[in-house]
């Protein structure tokens, strides 16, 4: 009985350790300090198990959030397409970065560089997941720079 009790507590502790049973990792979450009404959140998401899809996000730091992809057509025109979801392959990675995908913070609040902003991501399978993004200079949102 006692062993069962300890096992239960242990299982509960492990289950409580992560929001998503460790299946999803979100790293390098950063928001470019807004220079206009909107801001952009970028991060890398890795699946350590089954596939999932990012459906939406919200934050107290903006009125709403939208998932966008920046596209470039043959004549060099750049456009933003709003996407209903972003698929994360099983055991795969998706990278949200400038010029690619981003989560746009619509009507963003004033933010200082270095500030930490909480964002709740909603995944189709993993459900809600709260991450902390750091506010950086827009030029520092690029992953690599020479």
């Amino acid at each position, binding site marked *: 009985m006692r062993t069962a009790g300890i096992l239960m507590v242990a299982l509960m502790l492990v289950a409580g350790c992560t929001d998503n049973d460790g299946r999803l990792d979100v790293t390098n979450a950063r928001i470019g300090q807004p220079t*206009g009404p909107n801001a952009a959140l970028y991060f890398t998401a890795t699946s350590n198990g089954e596939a999932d899809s990012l459906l939406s996000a919200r934050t107290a730091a903006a009125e709403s959030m939208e998932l966008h992809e920046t596209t470039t057509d043959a004549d060099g025109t750049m456009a933003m397409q709003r996407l209903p979801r972003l698929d994360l392959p099983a055991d795969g990675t998706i990278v949200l970065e400038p010029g690619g995908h981003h989560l746009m913070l619509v009507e963003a609040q004033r933010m200082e560089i270095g500030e930490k902003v909480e964002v709740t991501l909603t995944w189709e399978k993993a459900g809600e997941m709260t991450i902390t993004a750091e506010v950086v200079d827009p030029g520092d949102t690029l992953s690599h*720079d020479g």
Partner: protein
Amino acid sequence: MLAVALVIAACGRNLASGELQGVVVDPPGDKPSFTLTDTEGEAYEFASETEGKLTLLYFGYLNCPDICPVHLAQIAEVFDRIPDIARETEVVFVSVDPARDSHEEIRAFLDRFDNRFVGLTGTEEELKGAQTAAGVPPAVLNDDGPNYTVDHAGWVLAYAPDGKNHAIYPFGTRQSEWNNDLQILAARE
């Protein structure tokens, strides 16, 4: 002689490689002539105001969080490293979204990067004319709600002091590439 060679070698780290790393325009294009309005409400004739100067021209809008601020932030950061060239360079940002981007907002936006950056805007017709004169596809304002998006040319056009467009810089241009190319272009008189 050895001393001179050593000095040159030591300075070599900061000297341009000699080759442009941007997308080279061959043959080089002419600097366009167009008149728009600056953030003080004054008329600004692009070709005459930037004559004889290294000039960077970019068309964008303020509601764009992904491309526009990153391009300008990159340029501003490179300018910190090459202040002598920065002093002689005119960076001109044209907002293609005058319905949302007021002169004051454009000024505040640009001041975030460098208060020497020039901000221009105009009527829909003037903007179309300016973009066409510069050889870029005119921006399209989408009909997708109050937070509408704008499709626009993503590259920066660079004109050397000789008045020619020698290269364009797409989104993703690295600071090292700007650093290299601005030094080469600054010398083309």
